[in-house]
């Protein structure tokens, strides 16, 4: 599955990084602790978080993540958006809580056989 496939099915808003929408997704990691993501997230995973500052994109890029989903309608900082466009890693937004979007994403990836 590609990031673009998830957008329609989970009703996500694309905020930035449109050039990365064809990245493949192999799972997701949910955490707001950056060292936790740095140490444990894997390549091509989605990252669900409430952190909106630009270090999120530094980590997403270093870890080759597929995209970042911001929960509860949170908006990224301008610098985060710039970084997302530069690195071509999309930032997506949902009005769902972390719990809701994680459940939906898990179900969808499982159904499609996309959990690595």
């Amino acid at each position: 599955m590609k990031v673009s496939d998830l957008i329609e099915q989970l009703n996500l808003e694309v905020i930035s990084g449109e050039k990365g929408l064809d990245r493949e997704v192999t799972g997701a990691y949910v955490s707001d602790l950056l060292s936790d993501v740095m140490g444990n997230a894997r390549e091509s995973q989605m990252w669900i978080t409430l952190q909106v500052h630009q270090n999120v994109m530094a980590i997403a890029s270093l870890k080759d993540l597929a995209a970042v989903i911001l929960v509860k309608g949170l908006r990224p900082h301008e610098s985060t958006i710039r970084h997302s466009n530069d690195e071509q890693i999309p930032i997506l937004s949902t009005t769902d809580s972390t719990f809701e979007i994680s459940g939906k994403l898990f179900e969808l990836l499982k159904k499609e056989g996309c959990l690595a």
Partner: protein
Amino acid sequence: MNLEFEIAGGDFTKAGYASSQVKKMLKQLGVEAHCIKNIVIALYEAEVNVVAHAYEGQILVHIESDKITTKIIDKGPGIPDIEQAMQEGYSTASKKVREMGFGAGMGLPNIKKNTDKLQIQSKVDEGTTVEMVNYF
């Protein structure tokens, strides 16, 4: 091959720059992907430690045919008890740093897990030097 980077304490906007450059370089050199991932995790955490705790720092990277040696030298408050600092969950990070999602006491443990050799030397009120070696 040698690379050198400067780190400014407190400036989170640049945290990750050195890690990103080293990652690109190792990719170009054809180093195995798993090995690059480990180095990137360790170096990023070391960078963030300098930004979060020290006044300024310097990263010296030395790449040889079989290994990469990274030295992170900072001027800062130093670490009074290194053994305690190595414990998962122990952190002295400020409230501001914690609110950003850093300072969970996972940085040094992440470095240890992802390096083959790790040496930390520190003097209180002077600074800390971290030396990491990863074999390809």
